[in-house]
């Protein structure tokens, strides 16, 4: 009953969606205002129905209604409540409904926010958003219905994959979707601007927050996904260049390029066409990413099960691309820059090179990701490229990009004199050169990439800090403020600029963590209880082992039993930590084993232990021990990036 209600709501939403597009079209054609009102009202209704059907699915997940096929696949009676809810986006059908849910929230927010602004553009924005929504409604109603009744009702369903039963999986997918789908808003505005021929910087200003917010969400989601992989998958890394990881990286790269290049349009009224191309690419890549993870064309451990949906997504991508090309061709005369560049040594040029690099990285990663198909087409053999390829290829790009991050603030708009460039470069270069040399020589680090990256990261951090220092000193002198007040005032006066610096600082701190990856260490050991082994500075004492079952610990082990060992770790002959690595067996998943990583994080390094297995008779344990330097800096950098984005989300922007 309730399942048919959910399906019915989606079908009605689909008709309302078509009506919204149709009546808005009539309004645009005949300028009859009542059709606009009617269109928006039907949009409200369809949004309400989508939200209701989403809540119905959540309710049924909580109540473990195994009459619904989707729920019998992704929930079980033993699944903890929070993971029953996360089952909403764990599978194909639910995640597509979640797409729809987020898109409808975005659409309605845009309409409420710009109800009386952009009167010419908004109807087109609504039409574009509704067309995107229509595609997902069709998919949900006719191909991947989340409310489809189960053929064989199984009251002992297997539940959510154990790997997904992690707190980060509660946050990561919603953030990822907020990021992905959020780019639909600036895309719709860009198309609206092209159709209405209002390609000035107004639509850019209007969508700044609508771009920054999804970009920030996507950035954090990518890092949280990495953190989840680090804690759950047990291989000790956070980025493996997997196709699904890369799928989220593509729109992030073009989105980042867009965020930089719009500054040129805002300040100099240039690169209008380029900005539109970037946001078109970003949105298309979000759909492409969705296609990649759901079509099964590229194999990945993170992908959804392969379905026939691929062809529909492919068709949708083709339509978007053709439409984008058509719009660009139709409005090519309006996309010519009104201003000119004054010099190659200007901030505009810096941004252009930065854009080129982001796009080049995106194409390089796209090439590597699609390589199995490309190699099969050319050689008949499907070859999947591993991290060694991506790391080797991307590192030179990264060097130039980090360098430009530092150079950017030193360049003025329009033109920078060679003399001032020399003056600006001198101190940070000397500072980072000395620091890097001392570090490299003292600790015999001669690998080219860690050395270059360390130099550049220090270079950029110095420049950002000196930008803050100079601005604070100036304010203290002019306004007679205290340094703290002056520092705070910087963010009030120019949020974009100083928020941006905080984002860059966050990224550089993340790079410190990436540099640490070059010094990861790993050891495989077998050890008996009460035995102590030494790994250089570490002394590892294996104390005891035991078994916990749903009976012995019903509160924490409701759906699994676990073999646990306790270890005492000393470092440099003083107590460091106690760790309890686990090997879990999930009952509902045919006792599927899963190693629960035990981790001690410090600012300098992570002590990371994975329990391979433990013999419950003898207690012989096999362990993988990893020392991962500087990983914490990746997470700290992300927090800074978040703070920077929040600062940049300027609520005081006033629109015409």
């Amino acid at each position, binding site marked *: 009953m309730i399942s048919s209600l959910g399906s019915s709501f989606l079908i009605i939403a689909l008709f309302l969606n078509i009506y919204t597009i149709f009546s808005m079209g009539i309004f645009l054609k005949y300028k009859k205002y009542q059709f606009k009102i009617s269109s928006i009202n039907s949009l409200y209704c369809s949004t309400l129905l989508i939200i209701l059907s989403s809540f119905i699915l959540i309710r049924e997940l909580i109540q473990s209604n195994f009459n619904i096929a989707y729920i019998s696949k992704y929930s079980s009676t033993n699944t903890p409540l929070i993971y029953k809810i996360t089952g909403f986006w764990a599978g194909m059908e639910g995640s597509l409904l979640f797409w729809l849910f987020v898109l409808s929230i975005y659409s309605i927010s845009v309409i409420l926010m710009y109800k009386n602004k952009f009167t010419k553009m908004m109807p087109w924005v609504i039409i574009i958003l509704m067309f995107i929504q229509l595609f997902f409604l069709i998919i949900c109603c006719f191909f991947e219905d989340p409310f489809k009744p189960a053929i064989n009702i199984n009251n002992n369903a297997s539940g959510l994959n154990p790997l997904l039963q992690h707190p980060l999986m509660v946050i990561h997918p919603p953030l990822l979707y907020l990021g992905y789908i959020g780019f639909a808003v600036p895309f719709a505005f860009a198309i609206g601007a092209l159709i209405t021929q209002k390609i000035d910087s107004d639509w850019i200003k209007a969508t700044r927050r609508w771009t920054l917010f999804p970009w920030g969400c996507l950035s954090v989601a990518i890092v949280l996904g990495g953190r989840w992989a680090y804690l759950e998958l047990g291989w000790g890394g956070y980025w493996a260049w997997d196709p699904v990881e890369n799928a989220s990286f593509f729109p992030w790269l073009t989105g980042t390029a867009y965020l930089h290049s719009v500054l040129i349009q805002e300040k100099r009224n240039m690169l209008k066409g380029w900005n539109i191309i970037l946001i078109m690419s970003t949105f298309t890549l979000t759909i492409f990413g969705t296609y990649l993870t759901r079509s099964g064309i590229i194999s990945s451990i993170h992908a959804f099960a392969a379905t026939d949906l691929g062809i529909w997504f492919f068709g949708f991508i083709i339509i978007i691309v053709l439409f984008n090309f058509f719009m660009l061709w139709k409005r090519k005369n309006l996309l010519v820059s009104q201003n*000119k560049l004054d010099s190659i040594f200007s901030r505009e040029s810096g941004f252009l090179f930065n854009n080129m690099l982001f796009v080049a990285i995106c194409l*390089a990663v796209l090439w590597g990701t699609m390589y199995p198909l490309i*190699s099969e087409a050319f050689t008949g053999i499907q070859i999947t490229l591993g991290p060694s390829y991506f790391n080797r290829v*991307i590192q030179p790009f990264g060097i130039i990009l980090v360098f430009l991050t530092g150079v950017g603030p030193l360049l003025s708009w329009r033109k920078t004199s060679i003399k001032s460039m020399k003056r600006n470069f001198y101190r940070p270069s000397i500072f980072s050169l000395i620091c890097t040399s001392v570090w490299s020589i003292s600790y015999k680090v001669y690998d080219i990439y860690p050395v270059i990256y360390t130099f550049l990261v*220090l270079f950029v951090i110095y420049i950002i800090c000196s930008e803050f220092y100079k601005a604070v000193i100036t304010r203290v002198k002019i306004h007679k403020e205290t340094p703290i007040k002056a520092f705070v005032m910087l963010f009030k006066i*120019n949020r974009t600029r100083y928020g941006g610096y905080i984002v860059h600082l966050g990224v550089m701190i993340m790079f410190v963590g990436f540099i640490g990856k070059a010094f990861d260490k790993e050891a*495989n050991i077998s050890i008996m209880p009460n035995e102590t082994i030494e790994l250089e500075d570490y002394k590892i004492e294996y104390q005891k082992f035991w078994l916990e079952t749903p009976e012995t610990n019903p509160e924490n082990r409701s759906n699994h039993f676990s073999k646990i060992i306790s270890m005492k770790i000393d470092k440099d002959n003083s107590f460091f930590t106690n760790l309890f690595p686990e090997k879990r067996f999930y009952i509902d998943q045919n006792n599927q084993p899963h190693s629960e990583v035990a981790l001690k994080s410090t600012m300098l390094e992570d002590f990371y232990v994975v329990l*391979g297995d433990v013999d419950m008779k003898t207690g012989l344990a096999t362990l993988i021990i990893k020392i991962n330097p500087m990983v914490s800096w990746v997470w700290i950098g992300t927090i800074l990036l978040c703070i920077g984005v929040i600062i940049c989300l300027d609520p005081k922007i006033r629109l015409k």
Partner: protein
Amino acid sequence: MKIIYTFVTIFSISFSNFVSEKQYDIESLILAPCCYGGIVSEHNSPMSKLISNFVKEIYSENFDNKQAISKLDEIINFSIKNGLMNRINNQENYKLISHNMDQEVFLELFVNLFGEKIRAVPQNNFFGKITWIFPYSIMIIGIIFVSYVIKNLSFNDKQILSEVETEKIEQQIKKYDSKGY
């Protein structure tokens, strides 16, 4: 100076009995043939462990050819048992085994066993070379393109803005710069 000290202290770890960098690099060249879902160095599966043991033997200082062959046999037997490969004649493959064997020979050995699909790096042929070159060519083309765009978007001596336009731009920049502090 604190930053320097922090950096300096961090990298003071140097463990002799951890997996060597060489072993890690070698294991990064091939995918774990159990599921082809990741490279051997970052894959926790029984199959990956067997391959790791083999690599460890090949690059160990106390290399023993018989030991290495027996470790390769363990991989083959495990693969046959789990339906990952058919029984094959290994004599040619045994000949490839040597102490500190070259990366290409290592790849050849595993390609012989599992096919080209096991590669996590491009093949060593013309197409493989293109694979490496392509991303850099994009970058070079990009740099040339941007330089061309900048050159074409830049003023030259013949292009002179009207005074009104110049003044407008100056005002915009002043407005932006004054917001700075």
